[in-house]
């Protein structure tokens, strides 16, 4: 299934990747802060391997980038193409949600 704006093709890391993008939409964060934010916002507790699997994939695709830092806890931020990918994905989810609610209302 094609997903909006470049998030598709991430395999099992698709959903964690969206959550990482969503977290970084608020501003730059380092790995542990991303995991904590995702837990608070969505109730999903990503494991460390899954978190960094998603971060490394997004980094390789240029959807996020590391912010230069002296600290070993390197923060990441959303790139313009990452923001566009997230926007496209959220629009797709919105269409699905709207359609789902409309159909459920008629059920």
């Amino acid at each position, binding site marked *: 299934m094609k997903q909006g704006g470049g998030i598709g093709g991430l395999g099992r890391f698709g959903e964690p990747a969206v959550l990482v993008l969503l977290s970084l939409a608020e501003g730059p964060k380092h790995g542990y802060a991303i995991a904590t934010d995702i837990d608070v916002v969505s109730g999903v507790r990503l*494991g*460390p391997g899954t978190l*960094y699997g998603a971060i*490394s994939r997004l980094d390789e695709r240029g959807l996020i980038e590391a912010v230069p830092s002296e600290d070993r*806890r390197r923060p990441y931020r959303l790139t313009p193409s990452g923001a566009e990918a997230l926007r496209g994905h959220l629009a797709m989810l919105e269409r699905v949600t709207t359609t789902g609610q409309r159909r459920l209302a008629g059920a």
Partner: protein
Amino acid sequence: MRNLLRLYPRSWRERYGGEFELVLRAWTPGPRAALDVLWGALDAHLRSIRPETVLRLALLAAGGALIAWLNYQATDDVQPVAAALLLFGFPFGLHRPTHAWLYALLLFAAVPLSGAWADVVSYHPGVPKPAPFYESIVALMPALLGAYTGVAIRWIASASRA
């Protein structure tokens, strides 16, 4: 938990290792987190595989399968098996001289394994009794000879260029 970081590919560790280690320190340890890191390491390895590695592994599997099949069918004529060990050992020695011994061993392993399988299913064409298992160690010779001929030719070629 931090020891699990060593399971990741070196290139991945160089890029993300420092920050990942800090995240692991802050994480509550447990079997679920450990499994998640193991899965992440496997995923990172699969993603770091280059096309030439896939080609090399495919050639190794094809060579191993052919050697095993030849050995399985062999009567007292071991020349086809020896020739296959020589032929398949050669390119691995040529392209991966530092690991020539490893590829020779892996190709050789097809001989005792197929011999053991023949024993299990009692398939011994033309041989009244199965040959003792340890006798197959002789097959290491053509495997090593093929691989190290490749190493020697590479060395000669690079010496003549210098």
